[in-house]
């Protein structure tokens, strides 16, 4: 089996499939074989080899007739937060043990309709609550990347850590992620991949296990900006089944990629220069600014005064919504049950044994901030602050077309390194959360390596429903950075 077949970008594979230079079945087998020899990464929770083979055969039949959708024959991995009909869907939680949905999420259904081949479901932080993939019931994912001269395991970021690792290690051509506070962009930055969180409402949330409904959004994780544009087009679109999905046309994002950024105004938010930012992150940011300037963009310093309040406000809004969404896991309708003679005791024992520590913490915080007497001080205040955060961005759009920031305050850290202090872990999302609070599209593009040889990402944030400009700026950064580093495959055939 040629390993070369896993080294294409999604766009290259698509072109070769259409030209009949490779078959979907060859491409599928190459990826299944790569997954088989990458158990050490723990990137997959469920592998669906038989399904992949059937999907690929169907794609080859369509391609032979000159037919096929946007992702025809492309092997992809699905974050295990998406419900997939007949295929175990766990959300990384013990409480969904053995859950086989009898329905398909809209986003995954859109991708299958466009011809994608399903390789399996990827590991993730439990219910997408985490920034390191360490809260998964199925164990942590190991980052394919290691620091120079150091073979200690690093986290791939989270919550879409399995998807990011699978893309970075060339186990699939693209993977789905979801992003509530940075869960696509932070793992993308940690693994040298491209992650795009679309505008809230761009992709249907129907059939995605809910974490925080006013923030959750699905998006693509890929190895190039072009791949991201292709995949987003297949995922996006209005859905009657999600009242918050928005009925606006889905453009051909790929067509936006070659537009020049000449004359585009790029904002640099002063408040993102946080005390204690490592010098190499600041230097990467300056480099990004220089690249865009060289490409003809106009650089404008802007102020987003409420930035520092986005993260604490998020840690009221997200747990509050989570405590409500996760009330459904009661041991009655699906998943795991801890048997007791009394109904309330059954609920309490099921939830105590079924949820992990971080999920319990967030449910308790959420329950507290919504409880009688505290609602105004916490939840209402957070939603007001959220209005101010969104207004900051609105004011910025009068002066600029997109914003450029680093994606994360640091490179990937070690497994187990931040487990003692929840707040230290939360601070990883400080640069990504504001875009969720305002519902804006944002993307992380790999832009360089740290002094220790680990990938670092730059983030582009755009106006609502203007993913095209985000992709256009992202493509410009990608071209200038020429980031072609790949992790050394230490994981092959390791236990």
């Amino acid at each position, binding site marked *: 089996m040629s390993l070369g077949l896993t080294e294409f970008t999604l766009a290259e594979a698509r072109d070769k499939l259409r030209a009949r230079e490779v078959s979907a079945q060859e491409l599928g087998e190459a990826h299944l074989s790569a997954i088989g020899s990458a158990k050490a990464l723990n990137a997959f929770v469920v592998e669906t080899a038989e399904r992949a083979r059937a999907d690929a055969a169907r794609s080859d039949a369509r391609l032979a007739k000159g037919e096929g959708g946007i992702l025809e024959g492309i092997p992809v991995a699905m974050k295990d937060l998406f419900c997939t009909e007949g295929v175990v869907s766990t959300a990384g939680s013990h409480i969904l043990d053995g859950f086989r949905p009898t329905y398909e999420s809209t986003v995954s259904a859109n991708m299958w309709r466009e011809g994608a081949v399903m390789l399996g479901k990827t590991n993730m932080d439990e219910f997408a609550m985490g920034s390191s993939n360490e809260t998964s019931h199925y164990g942590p994912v190991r980052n394919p990347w290691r620091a120079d001269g150091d073979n200690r395991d690093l986290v791939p970021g989270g919550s879409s850590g399995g998807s990011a690792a699978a893309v970075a290690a060339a186990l699939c051509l693209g993977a789905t992620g979801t992003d509530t506070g940075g869960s696509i962009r932070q793992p993308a930055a940690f693994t040298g991949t491209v992650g795009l969180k679309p505008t809230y409402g761009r992709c249907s949330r129907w059939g995605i296990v809910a974490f925080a409904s006013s923030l959750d959004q699905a998006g693509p994780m890929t190895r190039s900006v072009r791949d991201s544009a292709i995949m987003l087009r297949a995922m996006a679109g209005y859905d009657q089944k999600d009242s918050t999905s928005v009925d606006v046309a889905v453009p051909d994002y790929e067509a936006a990629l070659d537009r020049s950024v000449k004359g585009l105004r790029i904002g640099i938010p002063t408040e993102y220069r946080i005390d204690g930012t490592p010098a190499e992150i600041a230097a990467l940011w300056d480099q990004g600014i220089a690249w865009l300037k060289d490409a003809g963009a106009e650089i404008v310093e802007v102020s987003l005064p409420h930035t520092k309040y986005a993260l604490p406000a998020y840690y009221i809004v997200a747990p509050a919504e989570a405590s409500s969404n996760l009330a459904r896991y009661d041991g009655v*309708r699906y998943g795991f049950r801890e048997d007791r003679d009394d109904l309330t005791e059954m609920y309490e024992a099921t939830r105590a044994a079924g949820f992990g520590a971080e999920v319990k913490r967030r449910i308790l915080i959420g329950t507290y901030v919504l409880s009688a007497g505290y609602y105004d001080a916490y939840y209402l205040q957070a939603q007001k602050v959220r209005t101010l955060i969104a207004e900051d961005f609105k004011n910025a759009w009068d002066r600029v077309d997109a914003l450029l920031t680093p994606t994360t305050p640091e490179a990937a850290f070690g497994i187990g390194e931040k487990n003692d202090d929840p707040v230290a872990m939360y601070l990883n999302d400080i640069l990504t959360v504001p875009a969720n609070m305002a519902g804006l599209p944002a993307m992380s593009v790999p832009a360089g390596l740290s002094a220790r040889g680990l990938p670092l990402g730059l983030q582009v944030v755009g106006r609502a429903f203007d993913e095209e400009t985000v992709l256009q700026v992202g493509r410009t950064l990608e071209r200038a950075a020429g980031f072609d580093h790949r992790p050394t495959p230490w994981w092959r055939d390791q236990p």
Partner: protein
Amino acid sequence: MSLDKATVARIARLARISLPEQDLEPMAAELSGILTWIEQLGEVDTDGVAPMTSVVGHALHHREDKVTDGDRRDDVLANAPESTDGYFVVPKVVE
């Protein structure tokens, strides 16, 4: 804000998560740490600011009021830990 053990026990009860006595104190400390950090929000002047209700501010779609799905009892029950005769089975609640 510092939460005491009794408050943690109360919210755990509200959330239907049993917490053993020995876990109350450490959980109180963890939650207090998070809440103390969150409390910086209090310094933001939000007088006259409307709370966010929708980030995209689009109008909701209307559709004809007719049944579009249903008649899927077996699907609904397919994942139940215990079901019988078309019902979910739970511990007895009425004597």
